[in-house]
């Protein structure tokens, strides 16, 4: 065996705190290692060339690259050695950057640790075996979860690219948060005017199959071949018959149903179409409020419906769809007022959230676009905006910035002045974050042209005094406490992950951070990929994001799927479990523990029972290997012997 070792300086990233030359020198002493060198940037073109050269010149048959994390460049170097004629699995990487040079300060200790890490890699590579991928067919359909602006963009781009798209939206209409907004910053475009046509495109596109008011029940399979179960929630209205005429909604005697679309600013009917531009424009019954469900009698809508679409007996329905890739665009959620006891925790009707104010501003909102405060339906003359209501607040578990509140507050302050010229807005802020194109100019305009008073400081308490709400805060620039007697207070409540985000991640096998936002493959270079191949992210499910960023990501995710589907066959990862039938005693404990049902029983010609791995189903976790008492089933590339070689390299030296 002829092992070659390449130690990367990574400029100063590694060489700064690791004596790379010494590491290389130590490696030369190891049995089996015939070549060891160090190089400035091993991942660079000449760096890779050097590896190829050495393979040829020195006749190397196993390669160890000690550099950054294999999550970064393993694929790069696998391709490199493949080009030089070696099997790609004859490569091992030692992570001497993220795990050593960047986290340890003592050069001597770092160097020693690096030597050890490379020794382990050498020990492992000497136990490596060549592995070969097989290829399998791809189902060129894509599932998009979430019909907000990001999901819609992704669905449209995929469909325009010729793919069949299954779009699943959990609420009765697509459109998401953007469909609730009045105007968009910094252009003050009417939000639904620019979104509406897109929504129509979605529903009219022959390649897009829309499941509204539906949720993902189950996801099975792997890249190229996913099996999805979709739960179509009972609407109690047969949508194939419903024409969206709205007669039922007019006649419904229950007027106090919670209005999800308007975030509770107003109430709606128990049977309702969420908003005029809804897509699909179909009615659904909210059984929590419908008298037919709560009292067992009413039936008004059934009587009134001209097409006889009402069906109180409707049940959830499960449909199956097979796809090859998934785009997740499940959006975000918002903090509730009850998180703020010092601001009344929802007790005061005139303390509302930004999205509620958005509905009040909106012409198709409950006040028809007249700004009227909820308590007494009068026009507020003094409006206070409180930014960072929950955001950047470690004590509430949201240490991050919600990204777009500064901008929409500026927009709302401008719109308030537009609607009520003799009004005065106050904005309490900590920092103004307006780093998009035209954004800072916009927040300046709010102050310079629209006279919004910006006060740098947090608000400590809001309490009622007569008909006013007293907002007590600080002006840290003045170094004083300040109070504003407001008619209406708008809290820019923190952006949080969508309700159920964690559960969805578990179904998708993707990771999410402490806050429930989905984690991308690489924060800089793989922003829409996840660690599960075939699953992509778009929009605010990955982190708070404004409209242009969400749309951009939707398109990016779509382009990833299009390029994935540009081939008819995909290569499988050969690092899967393999059974040594001579050693297998047929106890089939592996069958019991395999999370993917990828192992089945096989009866050999001599009647002996053994385990058999279904190659396309095995995901390569290795649970079977650590279950098998006789070591007969081995996860390739992470076999017992390979891992033992690493253990021995550290423990027995």
């Amino acid at each position: 065996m002829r092992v070659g070792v390449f130690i990367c300086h990574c400029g100063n990233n590694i060489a700064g705190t690791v004596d790379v030359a010494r590491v290389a020198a130590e490696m030369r002493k190891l049995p089996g290692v015939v070549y060891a060198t160090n190089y400035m940037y091993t991942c660079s073109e000449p760096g890779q060339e050097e590896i190829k050269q050495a393979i040829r010149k020195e006749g190397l048959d196993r390669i160890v690259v000690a550099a950054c994390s294999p999550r970064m460049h393993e694929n790069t170097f696998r391709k490199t050695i493949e080009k030089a004629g070696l099997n790609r699995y004859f490569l091992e990487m030692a992570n001497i950057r993220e795990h050593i040079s960047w986290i340890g300060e003592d050069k001597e200790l770092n160097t020693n640790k690096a030597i050890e890490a490379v020794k382990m890699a050498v020990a492992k590579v000497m136990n490596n075996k060549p592995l070969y991928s097989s290829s399998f067919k791809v189902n060129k359909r894509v599932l998009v979860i979430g019909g907000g602006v990001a999901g819609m963009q992704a669905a449209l781009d995929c469909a325009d690219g010729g793919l069949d798209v299954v779009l699943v939206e959990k609420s009765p209409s697509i459109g998401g948060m953007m469909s609730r907004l009045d105007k968009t910053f910094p252009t003050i475009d009417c939000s639904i005017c620019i979104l509406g046509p897109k929504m129509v495109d979605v529903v009219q596109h022959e390649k897009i199959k829309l499941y509204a008011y539906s949720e993902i029940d189950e996801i099975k399979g792997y890249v190229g071949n996913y099996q999805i179960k979709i739960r179509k929630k009972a609407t109690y209205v047969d949508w194939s018959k419903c024409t969206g005429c709205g007669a039922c909604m007019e006649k419904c005697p229950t007027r106090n149903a919670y209005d999800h679309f308007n975030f509770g600013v107003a109430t709606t009917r128990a049977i309702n179409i969420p908003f005029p531009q809804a897509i699909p424009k179909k009615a659904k019954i909210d059984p929590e409020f419908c008298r037919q469900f709560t009292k067992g009698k009413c039936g008004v809508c059934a009587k009134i419906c001209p097409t006889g679409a009402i069906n109180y007996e409707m049940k959830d329905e499960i449909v199956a769809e097979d796809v090859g890739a998934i785009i997740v665009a499940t959006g975000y959620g918002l903090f509730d007022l009850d998180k703020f006891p010092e601001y009344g925790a929802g007790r005061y009707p005139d303390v509302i959230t930004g999205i509620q104010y958005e509905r009040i501003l909106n012409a198709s909102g409950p006040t028809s676009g007249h700004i009227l405060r909820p308590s007494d339906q009068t026009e507020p003359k003094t409006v206070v905006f409180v930014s960072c209501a929950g955001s950047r607040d470690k004590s509430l578990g949201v240490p991050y910035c919600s990204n777009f509140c500064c901008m929409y507050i500026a927009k709302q302050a401008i719109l308030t002045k537009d609607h009520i010229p003799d009004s005065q807005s106050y904005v309490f802020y900590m920092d103004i974050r307006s780093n998009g194109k035209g954004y800072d100019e916009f927040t300046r305009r709010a102050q310079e042209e629209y006279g919004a008073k910006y006060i740098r400081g947090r608000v400590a308490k809001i309490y009622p005094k007569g008909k006013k709400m007293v907002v007590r805060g600080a002006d840290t620039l003045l170094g004083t406490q300040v109070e504003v007697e407001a008619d209406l207070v708008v809290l820019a409540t923190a952006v949080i992950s969508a309700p159920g985000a964690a559960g969805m991640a578990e179904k998708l096998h993707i990771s999410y951070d402490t806050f429930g936002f989905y984690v991308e493959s690489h924060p800089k270079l793989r922003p829409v990929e996840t660690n599960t191949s075939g699953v992509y992210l778009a929009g605010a499910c990955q982190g708070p994001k404004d409209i242009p960023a969400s749309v951009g990501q939707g398109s990016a995710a779509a382009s990833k799927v299009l390029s994935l589907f540009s081939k008819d066959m995909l290569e499988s990862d050969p690092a899967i479990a393999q059974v040594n039938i001579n050693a297998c005693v047929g106890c089939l404990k592996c069958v019991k523990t395999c999370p993917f049902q990828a192992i089945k029983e096989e009866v050999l010609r001599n009647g002996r029972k053994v385990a058999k791995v279904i190659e396309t189903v095995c995901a390569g976790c290795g649970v079977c290997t650590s279950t098998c008492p006789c070591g007969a089933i081995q996860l390739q590339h992470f076999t017992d012997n390979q891992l033992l070689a690493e253990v021995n390299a550290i423990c027995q030296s």
Partner: protein
Amino acid sequence: MDTINLSNKIDWEFIEQVKEESGQNPSLCYQCGNCTAGCPYTNYFDYPVSMVMRLLQAGQKDTILNSKAIWLCATCETCTTRCPCEIDVAHIMDTLRIIARREGKVSEKDIKLFYDSFLDSVKQFGRIYEVGTLLMYNLRSGHFLADADLGPKVLTRGKIHFFPTKIKGSDKVAQIFERFQKKAKRHG
């Protein structure tokens, strides 16, 4: 206002000292002003709480220790409760008072005197003897008639004993004082 030369006027040791004694990290403060906004005493402070925190971050030891703010803080815990950065601000104020007292810098003599009178009573009787505390304070502060208007109200309603209750273990309590003073002396 004077220009503060940050190159040589940041008292790094002081920052460390407060950090150590309070167990709180002043660097966590991002100056949102929530403490100031909620502080019931802000109007009487020479420096609002958030400014005290800023002065602490800037290592302005003398300004802080000579401030009235640290003595006027009543430890009502509003700042601690609301701090988004989870800093126990009231505890920092406590610590600053302790350091100020240790260094003999007391900008609010009356408050300190009141505290001292209170503690004297504890040392002597083991519990608080309200009349004695008040009298002692009045004597020391020179405010002979402090709250004298309240006296009749209190007395006619039998709210105050004229004689102190001395607990049996008052010597044990006094010992706590003595041991502490000895220890404080040892550590300079």
